[in-house]
């Protein structure tokens, strides 16, 4: 069963957007819910093609605010669906002005996640031996 996990970075930005851009945040979260429920229904991440989901490098997806109304500012939520662990990681949230930095944050997140996964696997091997 898929679960969702947030980073501290996301939690901070969520609270900021909640005050400054609540309509954009609600629209994005609504789309996130559609994406998450689709994963839970058994569809593989690589087979999900929604207008509000953009495919970024390293398997990261950017979810936008589409569907929340015409006057909303462009906002993106960066997530990574870890199919093996069945965890949807919520990495960060930003707008056009923070886009480059947000993509860097995603890269850094993926490096750390891989390290963590490898450490976990090594631990499993050690306990097997």
């Amino acid at each position: 069963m898929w679960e969702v996990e947030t980073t501290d970075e996301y939690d901070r930005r969520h609270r900021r957007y909640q005050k400054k851009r609540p309509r954009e945040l609600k629209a994005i979260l609504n789309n996130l819910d559609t994406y998450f429920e689709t994963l839970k229904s058994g569809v593989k991440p690589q087979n999900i093609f929604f207008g509000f989901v953009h495919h970024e490098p390293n398997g990261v997806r950017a979810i936008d605010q589409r569907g929340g109304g015409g006057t909303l500012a462009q906002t993106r939520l960066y997530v990574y669906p870890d199919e093996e662990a069945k965890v949807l990681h919520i990495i960060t949230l930003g707008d056009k002005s923070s886009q480059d930095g947000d993509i860097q944050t995603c890269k850094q997140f993926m490096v750390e996640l891989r390290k963590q996964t490898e450490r976990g696997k090594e631990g499993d091997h050690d306990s097997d031996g």
Partner: protein
Amino acid sequence: MTLMARKRFTSITEMVRDVSEDKAFADDFEKLMEERQVVKTLLMLRAARGLNQQEIAYRLGCTQSRISKLESSSDGDIRLADLCGYASALGLSVEIVLMKKEATIVRRVKFHAAYIKRLMDRLACLAKDDENISCGALAFFGETAFNLLKIVQNAAKVVQNAAKKTPGRLNDRAPSFAVEVCEDDGKDQEEDCETVLAR
């Protein structure tokens, strides 16, 4: 960035309630979600069939941007004809249930039980004069009885497990798993619900 194990959530609403620390925001968000339930279902059904917007547009004989617009709409903005067309492109028909707003979960289950009964009666009628259909129908009735009982048992298990944590809660009541669909239930539901089949 911190990658340390944090709390995990099984739904987005649960996550929003935890991260927001603001009940009003979470309440507003849940209200907004209710406005896009139908659209959300359409998107999920499309994804489950591995189709993209272009393919749906081709099947409907319209442009991809029209599908994109439909998928960005709120439930209140969708025309019934568009809904039926989209469903048809997915190989589905539309069935609409009108139900009292205050209908309880029990009422809803009873409504569906009455609906199952109507369908079973139709199948039994079809099977009366045909040996092949009779064999298939009997096998299907057995399978249905087993599956329905299993669903009820699983739900009862959840309640029993919860009750174990608070001893004494079910002391004076014997758990009952009996499933009965009687004529009265069906009539009862027709006061609450109407079913419209759209093709």
